[in-house]
């Protein structure tokens, strides 16, 4: 099953750090994650040096999973030029375009 995650609540950091990232690293998540999109303060996870974000980026480089931050959220927080190298930012059109080739079964908002 192919899934994409949209992180829009304050719970995202905990769920990623304690559940999703370790499971992806250990290849026991149970679904193929094709993309993750980060809203509001969850974009801080994508800043260079953030431990969870760096772990996610390593997984993404190995699997081809998309990581993308909300552009307005990143610009409002002045972090758009401080993100982990290769992590793009964008809005819905960019997300849809980036995921257009993936056969998504579920989009899960956390």
């Amino acid at each position, binding site marked *: 099953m192919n899934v994409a995650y949209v992180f829009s609540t304050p719970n995202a950091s905990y769920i990623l750090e304690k559940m999703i990232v370790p499971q992806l690293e250990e290849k026991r998540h149970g679904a193929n994650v094709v993309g993750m999109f980060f809203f509001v303060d969850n974009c801080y996870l994508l800043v260079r040096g953030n431990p969870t974000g760096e772990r996610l980026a390593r997984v993404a480089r190995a699997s081809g999973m998309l990581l993308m931050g909300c*552009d*307005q959220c*990143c*610009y*409002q927080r*002045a972090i*758009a*030029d401080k*993100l982990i190298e290769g992590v*793009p*930012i964008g*809005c819905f*059109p960019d997300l849809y*375009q980036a995921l257009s080739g993936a056969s998504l079964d579920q989009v899960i908002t956390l």
Partner: protein
Amino acid sequence: MNLGVLPKRDVPPGAAGANMEPMPQSVADHVADPRHAGPLSGADGIGEASDGEGRLVQVGLWRGGRGAVVRARFRATTCPSLIAFAEAACRLAEEAALGGPGSIAERIRAAVAGVHPGHRHRADLVALALRRALASPGGPA
């Protein structure tokens, strides 16, 4: 005590602070207060550019004596970096600050701080629209 206008101090050429470029504003600053966003109807020249991926920017220029830009306005799709670059471009056009070293795109890029590396090329799109507006029939000979 007079708290009105501070006395103007002369800054000798070459001294610290002389000929300094204004501090670039962030994308969020520009987007929060897009003073140059507005209708283009009545402009003496209008330029448009798009990237084929849904992003579109239009720049309108109003001319005064000798073709000087006295008013610049833009319309752009809802892309923060594009809006910020367009806002900066209109301000530079009104301040006659598009000359000097470097291309128009480079000056626009330098006027906006904190842009994601993948968005910096959007200044080229705005520069293209601005050049087209400058070259339109209402522009200087």
